[in-house]
């Protein structure tokens, strides 16, 4: 979750820089140092995005999916089973986790492509308007994907292991 949070924090800066860099009308408006900085910044975001999904899938998710021993009644260390044990909390898994675990992967795929295209074209990207538009669209989807994954990750973390998953309903509004 730390990598995802850093990724989201870094995103607005990258998007603004990417937009202004590739939309500038005159080549002299952008210094070579700025181009180099943005390339390094995007590579750092790619690394963050891949770390976020890989640690999420192969470190955190196995713990979330852990199966309790037969006959166990204390599900507090088994988040998925805890959430699925009550009709008032099953939505956190069947909607929240099911959505999060897949949509999160669109973030690294998209930002890897964005970084590649920017590194390949640099300031010439301003002369490829259609490429630039698609890159910005994929950047926004990357942010959306990371945002959904981060939001549900935080909410599920809070709901299952912290509060025990018994009282707050997803989408029912009000039950506390």
């Amino acid at each position, binding site marked *: 979750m730390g990598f995802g949070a850093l990724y989201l924090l870094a995103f607005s800066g990258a998007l603004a820089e990417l937009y202004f860099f590739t939309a500038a009308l005159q080549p002299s408006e952008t210094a070579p140092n700025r181009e180099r900085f943005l390339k390094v910044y995007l590579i750092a975001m790619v690394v963050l995005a891949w770390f976020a999904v890989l640690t999420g*899938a192969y470190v955190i998710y196995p713990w979330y999916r852990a199966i309790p021993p037969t006959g166990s009644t204390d599900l507090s260390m088994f988040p998925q089973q805890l959430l699925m044990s009550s009709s008032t909390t099953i939505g956190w898994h069947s*909607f929240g986790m099911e959505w999060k675990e897949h949509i999160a992967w*669109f973030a690294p795929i*998209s930002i890897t492509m964005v970084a590649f*295209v920017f590194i390949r074209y640099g300031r010439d990207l301003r002369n490829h308007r259609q*490429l630039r538009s698609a890159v910005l669209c994929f950047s926004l989807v990357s942010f959306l994907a990371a945002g959904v994954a981060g939001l549900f990750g935080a909410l599920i973390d809070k709901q299952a292991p912290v509060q025990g998953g018994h009282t707050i309903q997803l989408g029912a509004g009000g039950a506390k």
Partner: protein
Amino acid sequence: MNTSGHVISPNTPAMPNGSGAAAILSAGIGAFALAVLAFAGDKSASVKSLLVFYKPTGPLSGVTTAAILIWLFTWRIMEWRWRNRTVAVGRSNAIALILLGLSLLLTFPPFVDLF
């Protein structure tokens, strides 16, 4: 004085668009592959069991590994073919964005539950 008779505009692309188009379209294909595999795993028990590459992570391991391989393989092939070409990037971008939109739809649980 321009002796060649050509005036080079500052807005003329210095590089062909093929490499960028290949990266964008393959990203769309990779995202769509992930969504289709996730959907198939959700709807078919046999597909779901086939996608368990790493037991603690379950079918998510197969869905994502296979999708990433499809994405990288597609990217490599398209990069090889389009790298030095100027392609109809409007069409390839449209396909990529449609695939990305479908991917978002196919991974949205309420939509998946309609089938």
